[in-house]
């Protein structure tokens, strides 16, 4: 789960990680009110969406008067912001963050992520703040410092020294401040089950203070249960409506832009099914994992979500039953055809636990539109053919 910048900064503040003062606004009036409370003389009006690259997309602007705050807030609130992370459709700006302008001397990068190879959190830092870290990693990898912190010992003095010397910070006062900054960041990463924190830029001000000018945080979904305060920060308007609806039924769904809807059990097989459709000359319309507890209701829901996409010309149901029994899926398909108007051909491949029973159920039901397939290749080929025929 991801949260907004203003929410990340609330967490930062709780842990004593310094940030400029700021207030969230959901209307132009509120933005103006916030600007007055903050006092100026310079404010930054920032679009709050769950995507990076907001500045380049025109979603972050500097204001030098209350009037300017009002004008910029009017422009940004309600705009559809397109950045390299939003996709071409962009994201609607529904919230603003009005923040004190900072006296920026230097821009750094500081983040904490899980290093999957070392199986521990790694603090990433760079002198190249303000640029996309992916680009820095690609073009000048030597400018990124990575410091793995073993949770068994936590953030130690040597981690801090590695950080400040790596960044070329020589003033002892500044060293102390940045080490304290990083150690708090590590603490809040661990205590909140964060998946990643990114501060880009972390700025050094003219007076030698370090401030988190931006803040991005993502959390481990599996651990949200023990962080009700974080879970309360969830902004469902930032999530894909279909993906969210699917999630409520225990389905894992990601929409793509092809023509063949996929309903599969298991994430690996679901991706493998998409790959096979592609290999056979078709295009997958979605990733959909019905999970291990699929039943008639969830399968029907799956059809409903797949069919919301008007581009779908055929559906390929590919089930290899292990935990999930094929007869249940077969019943689900029958149920679904009663609940949802399945107006496209449905190619069904059921293999594994109780596959013969499932075949029997489908045969007896004898539904038009439902085409049986013998294996993965056969099913994918039939789905591709059906989609082509529908054109």
């Amino acid at each position: 789960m991801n949260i907004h910048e203003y929410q990340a900064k609330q967490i930062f503040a709780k842990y004593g990680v310094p940030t400029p003062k700021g207030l969230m606004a959901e209307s132009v009036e509120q933005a103006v009110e916030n600007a007055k409370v903050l006092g100026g003389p310079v404010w930054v009006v920032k679009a709050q969406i769950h995507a990076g690259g907001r500045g380049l997309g025109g979603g972050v602007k500097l204001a030098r008067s209350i009037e300017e705050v009002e004008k910029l807030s009017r422009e940004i609130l309600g705009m559809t912001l397109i950045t390299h992370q939003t996709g071409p459709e962009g994201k609607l700006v529904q919230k603003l963050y009005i923040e004190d302008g900072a006296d920026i001397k230097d821009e750094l990068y500081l983040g904490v992520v899980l290093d999957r190879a070392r199986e521990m959190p790694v603090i990433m830092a760079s002198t190249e703040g303000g640029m996309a870290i992916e680009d820095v990693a690609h073009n000048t990898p030597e400018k990124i410092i990575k410091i793995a912190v073993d949770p068994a010992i936590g953030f130690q003095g040597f981690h801090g020294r590695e950080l400040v010397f790596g960044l070329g910070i020589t003033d002892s006062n500044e060293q102390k401040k940045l080490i304290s900054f990083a150690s708090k960041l590590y603490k809040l990463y661990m205590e909140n089950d964060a998946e990643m924190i990114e501060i880009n830029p972390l700025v050094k001000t003219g007076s030698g203070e370090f401030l988190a000018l931006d803040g991005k945080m993502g959390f481990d979904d599996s651990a949200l249960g023990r962080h009700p305060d974080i879970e309360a920060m969830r902004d469902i308007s930032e999530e894909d409506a279909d993906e969210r609806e699917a999630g409520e039924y225990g389905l894992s769904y990601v929409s793509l832009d092809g023509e063949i809807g996929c309903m599969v059990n298991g994430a690996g097989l679901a991706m493998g099914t998409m790959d096979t459709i592609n290999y056979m000359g078709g295009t997958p319309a979605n990733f959909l994992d019905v999970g291990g507890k699929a039943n008639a209701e969830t399968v029907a829901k799956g059809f409903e979500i797949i069919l919301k996409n008007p581009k779908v010309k055929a559906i390929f149901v590919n089930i290899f039953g292990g935990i999930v029994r094929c007869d249940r899926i077969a019943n689900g398909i029958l149920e679904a055809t009663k609940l949802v108007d399945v107006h496209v051909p449905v190619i069904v491949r059921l293999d594994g636990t109780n596959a013969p029973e499932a075949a029997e159920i489908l045969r007896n039901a004898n539904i038009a539109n439902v085409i049986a397939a013998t294996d993965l290749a056969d099913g994918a080929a039939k789905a591709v053919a059906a989609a082509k025929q529908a054109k």
Partner: protein
Amino acid sequence: MSILVNKDTKVIVQGFTGKEGSFHAEQCLAYGTKIVGGVTPNKGGTEHLGQPVFNTVKEAVASTGATVSMIFVPPVFVADAVMEAADAGIELAVIITEGAPVRDMQAAKAYATKHNMKTIGPNCPGIITAEECKIGIMPGMIFKKGNVGLISKSGTLTYEGANQVCREGFGISTAVGIGGDPIIGLSYKQLLPMFEADPETHAIVMIGEIGGDLEIQAAAYIKEHITKPVVAFIAGQTAPKGKRMGHAGAIISGGAGTAAEKMAALEAAGVKVVVSPSEIGKAIAEVLKK
């Protein structure tokens, strides 16, 4: 021969009397797995599925001599269960549970490593040595005995791969579902040498997916150390960047961990890489008939 487990392996179940634990332990017993007991706190001294129940793993190990534990406890108790197993001297913990927090797994795996306990999973189908020992949730009937070792991040692709291998007239020595979480136990790099050393295994199927770099590490290892033929499939060639595809670890982040880079690395290591899982069986037939 086989790897890690066989018909003599003694297994206990943590979370024995729970719904999932009961159902799958029963299936494992029916398959022939030597499940010699289980652990459910406060149910010690009772019997379940004809086997003794213990309050702690230590008691279970002392009384049964079990060396492997199959873990079915709820997600937030997984780390505790893994560490208890390690502490009790279990040699291999097979963690089936899905949804264990990553931070918990960091600690649990570090502790297991310190105690020389191997782990498989979490969020995996388990391990099966065909027609001898099934520790997990896979449909046992598709794994016919044979000479192909299988390692997979995905449960259902394990079944798909094994099924194809068997339909081509070959069979499986041992199949290991390693799971698709960001932090997992045994991975390709540790399992490949076991299959290389196992005289019963003549070829290896390796199924990976987008995210992380375990497959890249495996490619480097294969190039240097593996002489047996390897067939690989990497799921997610058509997956969009930055989107999590079902498994917690299946995500292309910052442009890294793509199927294309993994496939290229494996091909460069001499692995026969197939573009669809439907080609796994045929590819195995090709490499074994040479």
